[in-house]
């Protein structure tokens, strides 16, 4: 079965550069979540989208922005990169939204490993 696709899988950037991470959810899934996992740390929830609208916001820095497009794929835009942004960025998808009704299983992608030099 098709899984969540993330691209690129690896990315190297320098300080103050920008980066764009892409996430393609499982077909028919309408909800996308972004997580950041630093070295030796737990995944931290950044932001989520349901039906192309932001649904929940976590610890996403102001330098980052994200959106969900009409085909339900999502992009995480990261500007003015800092060394501390080096991490594994996971995208997850589910069917059914994040609040107000029962949420479905979140399926995680393989992650994008970002290294900021």
């Amino acid at each position: 079965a098709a899984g969540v696709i993330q691209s690129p899988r690896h990315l190297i950037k320098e300080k103050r550069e920008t980066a764009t991470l892409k996430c393609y959810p499982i077909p028919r899934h309408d909800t996308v979540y972004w997580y950041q996992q630093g070295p030796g740390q737990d995944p931290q929830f950044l932001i989520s989208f349901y039906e192309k609208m932001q649904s929940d916001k976590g610890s996403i820095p102001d330098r980052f922005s994200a959106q969900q497009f009409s085909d339900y794929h999502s992009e995480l835009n990261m500007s003015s990169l800092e060394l501390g942004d080096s991490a594994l960025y996971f995208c997850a998808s589910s069917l059914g939204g994040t609040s107000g009704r029962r949420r479905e299983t979140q399926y995680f992608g393989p992650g994008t490993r970002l290294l900021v030099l």
Partner: protein
Amino acid sequence: AQSVAQPEDQVNVAEGNPLTVKCTYSVSGNPYLFWYVQYPNRGLQFLLKYITGDNLVKGSYGFEAEFNKSQTSFHLKKPSALVSDSALYFCAVRVLNYGQNFVFGPGTRLSVLP
């Protein structure tokens, strides 16, 4: 397909009473099982995990979970609940032959009443 079920959207328990948050899973292969907690406006925090060995796993903040292979369950427990335990709890599974990706359950909201 791999899946994780948390049959209760909401669990209410009085402070000082024992609590249980239920989790069942369906995977092909040997699972690695996790519990995470999410407090309001914060990211996921790791509580505990089962990889292999003793079926009873002890984790952070006094929580523990028991792996039951025959029932494919990994329920989270705590002998005496605190009001500060009120949060959203996620069960997750990771399976090596599924690309090591996490599959999270939908979450259970725990409310501990004073």
